[in-house]
């Protein structure tokens, strides 16, 4: 883990981090990765990964309308809306 790695991951996560904090992230993330290295001591070639505690499968339901549109209600808490649309900085020139 180095400063370039940290900046690249932060970019992937679309997360602004303070330049002066980068050395600390390098140390902290390095320590966490060193901690998880312990897992490599165990051979897991024949182990099925466990994504979830239950064996349940997705429930199916009738294809009927169950929820009403609440656009205005939900947009009351949006930072910026216009004519029912969320506003963001211009994307297309």
């Amino acid at each position, binding site marked *: 883990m180095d400063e370039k790695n940290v900046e690249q991951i932060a970019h992937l996560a679309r997360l602004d981090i303070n330049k002066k904090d980068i050395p600390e992230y390098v140390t902290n993330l390095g320590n966490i990765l060193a901690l998880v290295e312990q897992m490599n001591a165990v051979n897991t070639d024949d182990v099925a990964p466990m994504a979830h*505690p239950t064996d349940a499968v997705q429930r199916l339901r009738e294809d009927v309308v169950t929820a009403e549109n609440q656009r205005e209600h939900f947009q009351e808490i949006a930072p910026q809306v216009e004519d029912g649309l969320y506003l963001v900085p211009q994307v297309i020139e």
Partner: protein
Amino acid sequence: MHTKTIAQLAAGLKAAEFSSVELTEHYINRIKKFDSSLNSFVTVTADEALAQAKKADQLIAKGEGNILSGIPFAQKDIFCTNGVKTSCGSKMLDNFIAPYNATVIESFNNAGSVMLGKTNMDEFAMGSSNETSFYGAVSNPWDHDYVPGGSSGGSAASVAARLAPASTGTDTGGSIRQPAALCNLTGLKPSYGRVSRYGMIAFASSLDQAGTFTQTAEDAALMLGVMAGLDTKDSTSIDEPVPDYAANLNADMKGLKVGLPKEYFADGLDADVAKRIDDAINEYKKLGAEFVEISLPNTHLSVPAYYIVAPAECSSNLSRFDGVRFGHRCEDPKDLEDLYKRSRGEGFGDEVKRRILVGAYALSSGYYDAYYLKAQKIRRLIANDFTEAFKKVDVIMSPTTPTPAFKIGEKNDDPISMYYSDIYTIAVNLAGLPGMSVPCGFVNNLPVGLQIIAPYFGEAKLLNVAHQYQQVTGWHLEIPEQYK
């Protein structure tokens, strides 16, 4: 009134010894009097609480409602509450007025319960001390210089100081059981899938589970009965009948087979905490329980596996906070990428950023197999350890935490030492099992908790085992002197 349990308060309401309005006023006055020094609430909903209490009094007068009608609760600020700020302990959601109720909140509302307010917590439930909250640290009512534990620190502190008779919490790696242990409360983390996660702001979706902070196991049984059950709005909620959890509390302990995992009593366990656990074991022996040593051989891998699985799920879940639809938005973004990056950079605190970065790294191309897939395989081994153990024993007991509460600020510079305060609780979440922490004594005037773990959907057994201990011990009734 504030030393009474839910069961006692419900009996008092039914017998008209006091009204829900009187009860609610009493707790609101206690919050006003004490919470400035504890910081256990982010939001107090006094007016709404009194309106709910009035309604509850009418319900009770008509002989309607149920055991939780008119009882005031504190709700962790991770549950969405319609029309009430739901911050999740973060600057990101400091301006977020939830537009709907979590199913857990709906369940309490349908029962005619009263919500006193929303409790402080580690930011997005990421922490073990409540120090990562945007709203500041919470003090442990047993000693204000100490942490109450986390992430549900406000929920624990508020009940420990009797500012509420009980509260809700969530537990992803120990966030109910650890603060319960540190604050002398009965904490219950149900099986994964037992209580709906709908409207509970997600941290790590395959680990998160809602549960309770109460004074007694009996109260936990009463609350769980209202909270548990299938919710079609949560695709991971399990369609399994909800038993009457209070019905089985009095079963005796004769012949109960209890496993003591040797890995949970090894190096790192405080010697005085170990003595309190021994005392509890002796009480259970007197009740007729039988103890055997067991092994959970992959225990040492639970913290490493957790600190890949949880951050990976967190980095994915927290991508929804983008400054577009709700939550914090930065000033004057120059383009869309700047909007995302600065809104998130300003809205999230240090620990949350750290976990997003770890998670994004573990999921990134070229590293997925080495970290995320590997952690999922280790997770399977940890779950298998429990499956094997439960072939031999009915429940497993251990300390909840390796030490009593630590001082505020003590572990701030060392995230990994903080992570290890959850060493005995994390494996339970990875396996999806139900777990409890029960008060079992003190070390230097700081509480110690006994952890009890049951097989999947074994909540009734857990509550029974905890209740029987509370019939012969009085640790759970201890209250800090200044809050009596």
